[in-house]
């Protein structure tokens, strides 16, 4: 019960601080449009690279361009949502180093919520826009035997995927309590993760696929549910029902990340900076 009220408190604080940052951003409207455009450009380039690849080949790992675009759109949109919501968590190391984390600790709101909302950047909508555009392109061109179940699964994939990536952002920030200068490690799992998921699972070594299925379950963001929707073989010969696990996996990841965050904050409170 106490936990529920903390979550409510957290969401409330998150909403209020986010609103402040949006107004801050709008104080420099031109700059906002430039950085949003920049964000869009950056993410567009890596899809252009995929287009270039397909200008030389017809298939990649047994997947056609619309199928790869489907994977790309799901991964990129889910990541974009998580990045929008919690992307600023990567600033934690800096706030620990310059001591400004302390100002968050004396406020009557959960630090996680305050930190997640810190420097909230609407410019990150650029990535979501691009991911959705690719997804729409994929849906328009790809061959899928649609069933009601598959249709229902689509929004679930996006939300669960955002949840899984969100957990990675939180866990990464928790790690920065311990290693405050190593924020870049996080990039390997966030940006690296989404890049990997943009390509078909058949491209990668089995050990790598196993790793992102059973150890760091990024495969649940899109590979496992998307192969089911596409009617492609499910990686590692897993049964079809794994396609419906993403919500559970997301909840599990968030719970673990939350524990890691608490442990990190506790260690900060006992060691200082």
């Amino acid at each position, binding site marked *: 019960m106490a936990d529920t009220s903390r979550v409510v408190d957290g969401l409330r604080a998150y909403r209020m601080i986010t609103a402040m940052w949006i107004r801050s951003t709008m104080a420099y409207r031109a*700059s906002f449009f430039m950085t949003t455009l920049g964000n869009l*450009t*950056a993410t567009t380039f890596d899809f252009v690279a995929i287009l270039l690849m397909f200008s030389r080949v017809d298939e990649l790992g047994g997947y056609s361009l619309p199928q790869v675009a489907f994977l790309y759109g799901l991964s990129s949109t889910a990541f974009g949502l998580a990045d929008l919501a919690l992307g600023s968590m990567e600033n934690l190391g800096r706030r620990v180093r310059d001591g400004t984390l302390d100002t968050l600790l004396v406020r009557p709101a959960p630090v996680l919520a305050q930190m997640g909302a810190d420097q909230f950047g609407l410019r990150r909508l650029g990535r979501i826009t691009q991911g959705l555009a690719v997804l729409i392109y994929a849906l328009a061109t790809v061959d899928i035997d649609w069933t009601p179940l598959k249709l229902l699964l689509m929004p679930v994939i996006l939300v669960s995927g955002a949840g899984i990536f969100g957990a990675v952002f939180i866990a990464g920030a928790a790690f920065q309590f311990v290693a405050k200068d190593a924020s*870049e490690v996080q990039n390997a799992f966030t940006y690296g993760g989404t890049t990997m998921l943009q390509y078909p699972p058949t491209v990668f070594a089995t050990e790598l696929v196993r790793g992102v299925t059973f150890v760091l379950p990024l495969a649940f963001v899109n590979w496992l549910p998307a192969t089911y929707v596409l009617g492609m073989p499910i990686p590692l010969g897993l049964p079809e029902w794994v396609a419906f696990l993403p919500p559970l996996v997301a909840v599990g990841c968030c719970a673990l990340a939350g524990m890691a965050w608490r442990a990190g904050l506790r260690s900060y409170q006992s060691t200082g900076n």
Partner: protein
Amino acid sequence: MGSGRLYLAVAVGGFRRYATYRAATLAGVFTNTVFGLILVYTYTALWDEKPHLGGYDLAQAVTYVWVGQSLFKTLANGGGGVESELMERIRTGDIAVDLYRPADLQLWWLAADLGRAGFELLGRGVAPFVFGALVFDLALPTDVTTWAAFLGAVLLAMVVSFGIRYLVALSAFWLLDAKGVAQMVMFTGWFCSGMILPLNVFPGALGEVVRTLPWSALLQAPADVLLGHADPLGTYAFQGMWAVVLLAAGRMAQGAATRRVVLQGG
């Protein structure tokens, strides 16, 4: 020469400064290695489908990946060199002090950036490359001359990279939102230097255009020298041409900026 010694000291300072970020360096090595792994697998799928794409065989393509990851920070294709500090100084107006220093502004920052790039090459470049060489079959030259030629091309690439970023940084004198512009240029540079896909794989007219842009002097040029895919002297000439053009442009921009600062009284 006295001034030569000054710039050497500045370069050593740049090297030392970046050498203090030990944890960040380790983190970077890890991240570049992970990205290298991901790229290797996608390239393998691509080259399986179409062997000898862009004139590379698979081993050469995989080698290209590790050269790219190893030079990522050295060349600062995605930003992260001294230019952000320079832009900050322009924004705050501290740059006026620099302009009146007896040292040459452009050479000063070039030296600092070369020092930084030198550290990134040793601290962040060697480890991912060795990892790649141990885990995958790379197409590496066995003769010392090619390696030496490669290092020469890397050095020129550092200068070209600085030339681009110096111009971007100086744009802060005229643009209200130079950061946004810098970001756009960096992303463009990242793509046009072949960090995602080798430039010789780019099709048709697009390929021909990107291969003449200054960014192709950054990664593609040294990689091709290492892979025996390009003649070192021709490559040097291409890189040198861009280095001269960019540094000259930077000098002109610097002159205009100085007049502007003097007119505005700093």
